[in-house]
C-alpha cells in the first residue's frame, strides 16, 4: 500500500522520456506510456489488496476523520516555511507534505482512472495511427494521467490544487491537440479560461481554510470542522468556494459551456478526460471534502440545486443535439449533474458509484463514437443510419454502453442511478425527485436516440465501404463493455467477504443496497418506455415527430441553441469585459505609459534639447561663465559675511 505513490510517478517519469527520445523509440514512445500506466494498473491491485487487508492497527492507517472509513496516510515533508519550530496554527510556519491518502474513495478513483486510461491509451494506438505528433500525444496523456492520479492521492489541498491545475493544463493541450484547425484552438482556450474562473474560487477556498485551520492537510481541516473550531459562516463560504472549483472542472451550470466545445479534441481524449476522469474531479473534490460540505446545509442545498439544474438542462440539450460527440458531452454534463445532486442529497455512496459506472459506460460510448468517426469521418447523426450493417462490433458495444447509461436493469447504470433516486427521495423536497425522474427519462431517451439513429434504421448508402474498428480499438471497447454490464453487481451483497459497495465506500456508516420498490420500478418503466419510443421514432420511423416539432418549436429552438448561454457569455464579454478592458487599456496607455513613463523621458529629452546649447564648444563662453561665476560667488560671500 505504501507503494501507491509509485503509480503517478511512473507516468510522470514517462513524460520526459517520450518527449526527449520519443522520435527514436519504436512506436514513437507510445509503448512507454502504456507500460507506465499498465504498471500503475498492476500496482493499483497491490494497493487495493493491501487496503482490503488493512485494519486501523496497520502502520499509517486509522479511522478517517469525518468519513469514519479506514484511511491510510503516507507522507514526506515537501517544504516548510516561516519561523522554525513555531506553531502552525498561528501561521508563523507552514508545513506542506507530499502526502498520499489511501481510502476507499481514492482506491475507487485509482481503479477507474488507471483502467480507463489503460484502455484509452491502447485504443489510441489504433485511433491515432499515423498521426505525426503521436509522441506528444502520448506524452500529454501520460502527464494527464499522472496528474490525475496525484489529484486523487493527494492528502493536502495544496498538492491537490497543483494536480488540479496540471490536469487542466493537460486538458487544454489535448483539446487543442490538432491546433492546425481553428476550432480546437478556440475550444482549448475556452476550456482553459472557463475552468480557470472556477479554479480561482478553489484557490481562494483553500487559502481561506488554511487561514482558519493553519494547515493544508485535509484530515486536519476536517478534524477542525468536526470539533467546531470553524464558524458556520467559514464552513459555508469555503465549501461554496471549493464547489466553484468543482463546478468549473465538472462542467456544472453555468460553467458547462466548455465541455461540448472540448469535443474538438481527439475522441480518446474526450473518453478519458472529458467523460471518465478529469470532469469527475469536481465530483471527487466534493466527495473528498464531504465532511466540510455536509457540515453546511446551505452548501449542500446549493450543490444539489446546481446539480439538478445541470442534469435537467444538459439532458434537454442532449436530446436535440445533432453532433454525436456533443450528444455524449451533454450526456456527460447531465450525469455529472446527477452525481452532484446525489452528493447534495447525502448520497455519498450513490454519487461515487454512479461516477464509476458512468465512467466505464461513457468511456465506452466515446470510444464507440470515436470508432464511428474514425471509419466514417462523420459526426452528424442526421447523416448516419443503420451502421450496424458495416460495423457490427462497434454497434453492439455502443448499444451496451447506451443501455447501461440509459438505466436498463441489471446493467451498471441502472443500479447507480437507482441509488441516486433513493438518496434524492430520502433527503430532498418532492420537486427534486420529480425532476430527477424526468432527467432519468430524458437520459434514457437521448441515449436511445443516439443509439438508434446511428446504428439502426435505414442504412445510409454512402457508408457502403466503411469497415469496422481495428482490433486495438474493439478489444478495449469490449473490456469496457464488460464493466458497463457487470459493474452494477458490486452493489449487491455477493457471496464471500464483500458485502456490497455500500460497505466499502460510505460516509459515517456502511449500508447495504437500498432499493425502494416503486422508485426502481418507475425508473425501469421510464427507461424501457424511452427506449421503445425511441426505437419506434428513430429506427422504425413509425411515429412521426414532425407534429411534435411543430407544437414545441419554440422549446426546441431554445434547447438547440443551448439556452443561448454562449450568446449571453459572448455579450457579457463583448459589452462588459471588453469595455472595462478598453478602459484599463486606456488608463495604461494614456496615464501609465504616456504620462508616467514617457512623461519623464520626454521632459528629459526636451530639456536636453534646449539645454545642450549652453555647450557651445567655444572656449570664451566657458571663460565668460567662469567670470560670471566669480562675480556671483563674490556677491554671495559678501551677502553671507555681512
Amino acid at each position, binding site marked *: 500500500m505504501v507503494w501507491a505513490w509509485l503509480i503517478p510517478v511512473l507516468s510522470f517519469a514517462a513524460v520526459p522520456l517520450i518527449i526527449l527520445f520519443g522520435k527514436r523509440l519504436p512506436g514513437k514512445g507510445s509503448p512507454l506510456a502504456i507500460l507506465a500506466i499498465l504498471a500503475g494498473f498492476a500496482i493499483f491491485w497491490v494497493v487495493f489488496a493491501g487496503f482490503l487487508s488493512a485494519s486501523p492497527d496497520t502502520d499509517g492507517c486509522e479511522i478517517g476523520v469525518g468519513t469514519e472509513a479506514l484511511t491510510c496516510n503516507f507522507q514526506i515533508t515537501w517544504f516548510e516555511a516561516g519561523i522554525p519550530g513555531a506553531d502552525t496554527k498561528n501561521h508563523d510556519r507552514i508545513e506542506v507534505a507530499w502526502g498520499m491518502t489511501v481510502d476507499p474513495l481514492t482506491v475507487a478513483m485509482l481503479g477507474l482512472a488507471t483502467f480507463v486510461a489503460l484502455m484509452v491509451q491502447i485504443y489510441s494506438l489504433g485511433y491515432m495511427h499515423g498521426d505525426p505528433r503521436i509522441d506528444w500525444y502520448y506524452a500529454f496523456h501520460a502527464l494527464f494521467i499522472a496528474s490525475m492520479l496525484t489529484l486523487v492521492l493527494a492528502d493536502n489541498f495544496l498538492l491537490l490544487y497543483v494536480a488540479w491545475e496540471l490536469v487542466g493544463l493537460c486538458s487544454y493541450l489535448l483539446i487543442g491537440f490538432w491546433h492546425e484547425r481553428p476550432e480546437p484552438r478556440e475550444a482549448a482556450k475556452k476550456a482553459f479560461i472557463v475552468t480557470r474562473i472556477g479554479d480561482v474560487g478553489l484557490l481562494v477556498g483553500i487559502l481561506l481554510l488554511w487561514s482558519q485551520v493553519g494547515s493544508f492537510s485535509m484530515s486536519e481541516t476536517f478534524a477542525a470542522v468536526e470539533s467546531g473550531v470553524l464558524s458556520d459562516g467559514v464552513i459555508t463560504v469555503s465549501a461554496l468556494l471549493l464547489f466553484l472549483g468543482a463546478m468549473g472542472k465538472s462542467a456544472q451550470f453555468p460553467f458547462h459551456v466548455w465541455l461540448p466545445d472540448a469535443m474538438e479534441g481527439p475522441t480518446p481524449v474526450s473518453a478519458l478526460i472529458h467523460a471518465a476522469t478529469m470532469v469527475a474531479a469536481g465530483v471527487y473534490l466534493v466527495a473528498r471534502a464531504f465532511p466540510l460540505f455536509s457540515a453546511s446545509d446551505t452548501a449542500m442545498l446549493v450543490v444539489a440545486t446546481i446539480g439538478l439544474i445541470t442534469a435537467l438542462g444538459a439532458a434537454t440539450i442532449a436530446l436535440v443535439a445533432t453532433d454525436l460527440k456533443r450528444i455524449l458531452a451533454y450526456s456527460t454534463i447531465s450525469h455529472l449533474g446527477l452525481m452532484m445532486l446525489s452528493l447534495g442529497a447525502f448520497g455519498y455512496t450513490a454519487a461515487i458509484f454512479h461516477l464509476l459506472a458512468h465512467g466505464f459506460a461513457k468511456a465506452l460510448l466515446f470510444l464507440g463514437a470515436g470508432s464511428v468517426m474514425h471509419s466514417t469521418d462523420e459526426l452528424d447523426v442526421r447523416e448516419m443510419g443503420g451502421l450496424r450493417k458495416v460495423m457490427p462490433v462497434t454497434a453492439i458495444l455502443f448499444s451496451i454502453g447506451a443501455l447501461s447509461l440509459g438505466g436498463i436493469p441489471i446493467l451498471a447504470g441502472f443500479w447507480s442511478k437507482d441509488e441516486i433516486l433513493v438518496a434524492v427521495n430520502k433527503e430532498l423536497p418532492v420537486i427534486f425527485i420529480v425532476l430527477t425522474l424526468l432527467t432519468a427519462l430524458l437520459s434514457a431517451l437521448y441515449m436511445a436516440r443516439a443509439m438508434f439513429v446511428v446504428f439502426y434504421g435505414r442504412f445510409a448508402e454512402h457508408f457502403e465501404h466503411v469497415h469496422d474498428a481495428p482490433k486495438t480499438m474493439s478489444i478495449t471497447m469490449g473490456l469496457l463493455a464488460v464493466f458497463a454490464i457487470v459493474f452494477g453487481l458490486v452493489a449487491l451483497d455477493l457471496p464471500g467477504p464483500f458485502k456490497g459497495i455500500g460497505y466499502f465506500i460510505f460516509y459515517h456508516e456502511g449500508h447495504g443496497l437500498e432499493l425502494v420498490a416503486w422508485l426502481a420500478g418507475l425508473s425501469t418503466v421510464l427507461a424501457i418506455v424511452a427506449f421503445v419510443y425511441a426505437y419506434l421514432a428513430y429506427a422504425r420511423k413509425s411515429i412521426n415527430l414532425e407534429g411534435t416539432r411543430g407544437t414545441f418549436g419554440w422549446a426546441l429552438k431554445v434547447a438547440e441553441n443551448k439556452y443561448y448561454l454562449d450568446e449571453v457569455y459572448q455579450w457579457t464579454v463583448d459589452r462588459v469585459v471588453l469595455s472595462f478592458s478598453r478602459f484599463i487599456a486606456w488608463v495604461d496607455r494614456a496615464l501609465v505609459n504616456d504620462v508616467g513613463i514617457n512623461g519623464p523621458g520626454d521632459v528629459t529629452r526636451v530639456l536636453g534639447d534646449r539645454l*545642450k*546649447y549652453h*555647450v*557651445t*564648444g*567655444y*572656449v*570664451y563662453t566657458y*571663460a*565668460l561663465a567662469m*567670470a560670471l561665476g566669480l562675480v556671483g560667488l563674490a556677491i554671495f560671500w559678501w551677502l553671507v559675511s555681512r
Partner: protein
Amino acid sequence: MVPLVAFQVLSAALFAIGLYGVMARRSAVLIVMSIELMLNAVNINLIAAASHLDGMGKWANFDGQIIAIFIITVAAAEVGLGMAIILRMYRNRSTVNVDEINLMKW
C-alpha cells in the same frame, strides 16, 4: 606718498581689462596677450603689498617679490607652450580664431 589702495585699484582695473580681452577676442594670440595683462595685474598687487606691508604678520617684504618672480617664470613657460599650441593649431586648422574651433560642442 601713494597709498596701497591706489595700486590695488589699478591692479583690479588692469585685471578687468585683461579679463575682457580673454573673453572677447577672437585670435588665440590676443587671448594670450590678455592673459599676460592679467598676470601683470596680479604682480602689481603682490609687489605693492610687499612694499607697503613689510613686517606685518609673518611675511617679509620680499616674499611678495619672490612670488612675483615665480609668476613671471611661469608666465614665460606659459607663453612658450601657448605659442607652440597656437602654432600646432594653425598648422592643423589654418586658423587661430577660437570661434572657428568648437570641437567640444554637444
